[in-house]
């Protein structure tokens, strides 16, 4: 095991060396030495953690949920880390930089789902589930069809999300470290498979916690540096920013982001219920000891995420002043308008503007770490769906599966997902991938969330209602996104989208709920009666946690 890890560390060095050689002859930028040194320290530390975690990961419960031994505060930081992905660090700062106030609207949409998760599902999940959210949805329904639906919903979301992360990370690393795109994607894929396959949830959680703390510290430093230049006066910051930005004072007000109420509401539904249906977020509620720790996790996570979004707002305005307004357009591409590298680089160049080369190196390494931590969580969620939901439950036909075998399957699944992520990452390099995040959130909101919600709260839910209703949610999400502006017009090149909404959740979510309800109330089978009869016992466990403690100990 230790040999494998040191071998990997060596191969990382080799990849960098090879990347540097190739990079010199091809298009990649010059190597960023401080960034690479700091990145090495991070990789060495996280591989050390993985080695430590691998010694402690013996049972399936250790692998999937770190044995339920993560504290509420630790889990809250890890959840915040999952949410503070490279996309939100770079994306939201970049949006504030480009559009000003509209960036804040987006972050508020991302945040308000969290209180709802706390009030409605966090404790319930902890009390009813064991390793995956399908444990909850299949609690009193028929195992096989419900598990297959949940696994498909999970894997679809995981793969889509991974594609977005891999492509984004490949491009980012290409710019930051001067590595070739393919090398970057393979490196990210290899490291995430190592963390997950050997270290399980324990390593995945600690990698996420370390990265979240580094990211929060780095962002806090940038925000303070920005504010210090203006004597901590927001008015002065805003005044200078509006003088520099081409949109002038318009950046201080809502702009075109939310143009019509239906798309605004639809976006809100997708973000809010989508968050409550993301498998890599839901699985974190099984890593804590009980409902009390689960609720503490959300409290900590909401606070940290909210704080982080306020920082991104300051960083975005800071970037207008110090990046856009830098002397001689130092951070601008040749056209003198867009940023060097890609559009989302505002936060990165701001790091250089306020902290010099070494701080740029630090933030680059943190951005890389962010990608690694988030893809690891996604991979673990996907692997759990394969090994726990499909292998150990749906296809075991009621037979008890050996725990060792189940863990083997999840490790192979980890490897399989890693290879798939690398291949997709390379295949989608030049593709327009804007649709994948919209699709992932819409599927999570339309297929995963309605079944989960109804299985917890509605006595009348039957297997037929959950399964067919869930598939209707899944397929309507898919169809509406394909007919929407991101796929139908941007990718397929049609003149006008048939469905004018990027996030069609306002249609697909109610459709799923109505289908689940209607197909359940018209279900008169014997099994339907059994599902209803078993609700009371489920509800007692859901409300009190009686039974869930025993389920975790082994």
């Amino acid at each position, binding site marked *: 095991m230790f040999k494998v890890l040191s071998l990997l560390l060596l191969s990382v060095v080799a990849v960098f060396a090879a990347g540097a050689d190739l990079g010199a002859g091809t298009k990649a930028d010059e190597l960023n030495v401080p960034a690479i040194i700091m990145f090495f320290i991070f990789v060495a530390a996280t591989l050390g953690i993985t080695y430590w975690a691998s010694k402690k990961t013996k049972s399936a419960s250790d692998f999937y949920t770190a044995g339920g031994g993560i504290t509420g505060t630790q889990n809250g930081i890890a959840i915040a880390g999952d949410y503070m992905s490279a996309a939100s660090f770079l994306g939201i700062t970049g949006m504030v930089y480009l559009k000003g106030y509209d960036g804040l609207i987006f972050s508020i949409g991302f945040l308000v789902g969290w209180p709802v998760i706390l009030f409605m599902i966090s404790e319930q999940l902890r009390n009813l589930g064991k390793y995956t959210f399908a444990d909850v949805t299949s609690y009193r329904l028929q195992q096989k069809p419900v598990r297959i639906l949940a696994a498909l919903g999970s894997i679809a979301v995981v793969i889509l999300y991974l594609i977005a992360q891999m492509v984004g990370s490949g491009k980012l690393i290409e710019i930051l470290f001067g590595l070739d795109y393919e090398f970057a994607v393979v490196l990210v894929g290899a490291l995430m498979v190592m963390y997950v396959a050997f270290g399980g949830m324990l390593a995945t959680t600690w990698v996420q916690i370390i990265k979240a703390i580094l990211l929060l510290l780095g962002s806090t430093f940038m925000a303070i540096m920005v504010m210090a230049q203006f004597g901590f006066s927001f008015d002065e910051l*805003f005044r200078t920013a*509006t003088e520099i930005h081409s949109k002038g004072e318009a950046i201080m007000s809502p702009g075109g982001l939310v143009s019509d109420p239906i798309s605004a509401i639809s976006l809100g539904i997708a973000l809010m219920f989508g968050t409550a249906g993301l498998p890599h977020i839901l699985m974190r509620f099984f890593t804590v000891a009980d409902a009390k720790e689960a609720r503490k996790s959300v409290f900590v996570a909401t606070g940290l995420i909210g704080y982080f979004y306020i920082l991104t707002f300051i960083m975005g305005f800071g970037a207008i002043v110090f990046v856009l307004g830098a002397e001689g357009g130092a951070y601008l591409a040749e056209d003198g308008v867009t940023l060097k590298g890609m559009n989302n680089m505002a936060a990165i160049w701001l790091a250089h503007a306020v902290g010099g080369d070494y701080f740029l190196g630090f933030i680059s390494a943190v951005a890389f770490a962010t990608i690694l931590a988030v893809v690891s969580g996604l991979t673990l969620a996907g692997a759990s769906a394969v090994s726990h939901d499909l292998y150990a439950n749906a296809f075991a036909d009621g037979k008890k599966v050996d725990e060792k075998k189940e863990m083997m399957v999840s490790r192979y699944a980890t490897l399989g997902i890693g290879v798939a992520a690398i291949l997709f990452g390379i295949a989608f390099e030049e593709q327009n991938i804007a649709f994948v995040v919209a699709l992932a959130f819409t599927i999570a909101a339309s297929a995963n969330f309605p079944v989960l919600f109804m299985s917890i709260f509605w006595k009348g839910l039957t297997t037929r209602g959950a399964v067919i209703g869930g598939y209707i949610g899944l397929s309507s999400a898919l169809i509406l996104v394909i007919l929407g502006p991101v796929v139908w017009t941007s990718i397929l090149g049609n003149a006008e989208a048939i469905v004018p909404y990027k996030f069609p959740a306002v249609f697909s979510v109610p459709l799923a709920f109505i289908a689940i309800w209607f197909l359940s109330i018209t279900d008169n089978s014997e099994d339907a009666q059994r599902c209803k009869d078993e609700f009371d016992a489920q509800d007692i466990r859901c409300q009190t946690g009686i039974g869930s403690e025993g389920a975790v100990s082994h």
Partner: protein
Amino acid sequence: MLFYTPTIGLNLKKEIIVDKNMVEKIKANPSYQKLVTERSSFAWKLTITILVVYYAFILLIAFSPETLGAKLVAGGMATVGIPVGVAIIVFAFILTGIYVKRANTEFDGLLEQVKEDVAKEMK
């Protein structure tokens, strides 16, 4: 069937089997009934509060963006929308704090009561 090893009270190491009989008993337990009704009504009230606040904000942006774009103080640069936006973020966090506080004290107290009653039933 649910199994529970109670750790409260006198170190009882007896498994509680939540069978049909026990389901009925727990449902009839006054502490349990109080826990379920109060917690769910509280959770719904807080959920509706955050939804109303968020969608009011969204509708304001959609129908009356100039309200949020108005200057906070004459001659200043900050607009009304900025403190409003930050306030929604802070408000969301405060709501989670309010829920956690009440759950940790009142709801967990009721829950302990239910568990004690159940443990007694099992003797």
